[in-house]
């Protein structure tokens, strides 16, 4: 389990346009609204739609976040596009005891086996959830639900206000998608 009292570092892998950066912003805002410390930071690049992108999220329940460099040794890695698993080493630098969270219809065991992973792995079919509830395959808000399933550092309810601010009348659908993904996320620990 991840120690929720200390600094938690989450690296998000997505593709340009999938909303990885937005996810980190929303979670950081929610954490800060709970009185915690948080930092959301895009990978500083020339973003192009469809290209692999990174976004970084830090949450600390007790102390200000002082480090501003990119996250090389994350506690958690969130992958918005399962296709990235065969393109880049998403678990690079993942801390011992760290968790990989992937948007895929497959079970965690299957992902662990195919990619020969040695870390705890969680999966959720966020694309299906997003299609059903939002009508578009934009999975970033669903993946927030998946993240909170593996690390209960903030409550799902705290996301509602940031989601409302960001999405206006589309917020309710996104909140539903987040909650559904939270319910459906399956976590498999290391054997």
């Amino acid at each position, binding site marked *: 389990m991840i120690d929720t009292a200390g600094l938690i570092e989450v690296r998000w892998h997505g593709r340009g346009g999938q909303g990885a950066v937005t996810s980190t*912003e929303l979670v950081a805002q*929610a*954490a800060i609204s709970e009185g915690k410390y*948080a930092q959301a*930071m895009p990978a500083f690049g020339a973003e192009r739609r469809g290209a692999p992108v990174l976004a970084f999220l830090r949450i600390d329940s007790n102390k200000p976040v002082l480090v*501003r*460099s*990119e996250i090389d040794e994350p506690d958690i890695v969130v992958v918005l596009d399962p296709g990235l698993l065969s393109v880049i080493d998403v678990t690079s630098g993942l801390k011992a005891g760290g968790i990989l969270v992937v948007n895929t219809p497959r079970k965690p065991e299957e992902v662990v086996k195919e990619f020969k992973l040695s870390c705890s792995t969680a999966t959720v079919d966020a694309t299906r959830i997003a299609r059903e509830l939002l009508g578009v395959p934009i999975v970033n808000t669903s993946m927030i639900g998946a993240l909170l399933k593996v690390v209960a550092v903030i409550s799902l309810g705290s996301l509602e206000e940031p989601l409302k601010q960001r999405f206006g009348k589309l917020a309710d659908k996104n909140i539903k998608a987040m909650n559904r993904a939270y319910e459906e996320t399956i976590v498999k620990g290391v054997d």
Partner: protein
Amino acid sequence: MSNRVGIEVSRAIAVAAKLARVDVVAAYPITPQTHIVEDIAELVANGELDASYVPVESEHSAMSACLGASAVGARAFTATAGQGLELMHEVLYVASAMQLPIVMSLANRALSSPLSIWGDHSDAMSMRDTGWIQLFAANGQEVLDNILCAFRIAEDRKVLLPTVVHLDGFHLTHVIEPISIPEPSEVDGFLPPFNYPLPLDPDKPVTMGAFAPPYIYPETKKAQQVNLLAAKPVILQSWKEFGDHFGRYYSPVESYRAEGAKVLLLTMGSYSETATLAIDSLRKDGKMVGALSLRLWRPFPFEEIRQAVKGADVLIVLDRAVSFGGPGGPVCSEIKAVLYDEARRPKIVGVVGGLGGRDISPSDFVSIINRGIEISQTGSEQEFEMFGVRE
């Protein structure tokens, strides 16, 4: 009552401009601009900020429009970054020489070529000698607070000088973090309305920034030098009063575990906070190290720096800009000059790093400090070293 929110630092600057009740914002909104002026334009369009937003055709025009606005007594603000600052460069000197208290935020970015939109202090150093009051910020809260202080300092009758708040491109501008936003009434209590003593007035025409032949030009420059130095007590007083109002106190040089430290690392901007993590880790190993962060860059805090390094044997200075072919980074060169006449001074080691957005992690800072200690003992063949550069 302030409101603690998670907000992108660029957007917090727009909020600061609103809280300062700016009258005129002139800016060029295209790359390398940030969200700052985009948000200000929105605030003005929504009627949340009663100001004129002038979307000019270049940064040169942005600063020129600010000159005019300030000269008629309007509170003027602009924001730029990197190449944008370079394009407004010649007008920067005019603002200070004509004593127009414009406030600007500068998202510090590297300069072309090669094209880089990432952060370093090359742009900041290019405006070193423009006569502006210059403050650096280490985090988002400092940025917002110092924008408010900047208006207060710039517009003080004893000062009347343009003021820039430097903030690191990306490492601050694009980061969402907790920032306490003060209530408008609290800010009104700290920042009085702008009351320029000599506004342009058609009924009382004056000439500003006129032609100066050799018999008068040096006197104008001496006046600028005297005036900029005289701004320092006002800066200190403004920070003190800001602290009394809002509970956050600022000083020209911040120190971290510097008490009794034999080795000090000096940085400017957002890397200052990351460096403190390296200090903690080295202290755990029993090394007597500490950190200094230079917040006030112009007017230079001579006495504070001399005091801050008094007990140290080694002072390592990190620059995020290069003076090509020169004696080191601009900050290190100045620190050396300032300490040269001291009977007892630390060995000073110059390191250039973090160019064009290259990360410096806490463990990199440990390496920089250890290498600095080594150089202080053995010397180096180079005037300064560039950290982490592949050769």
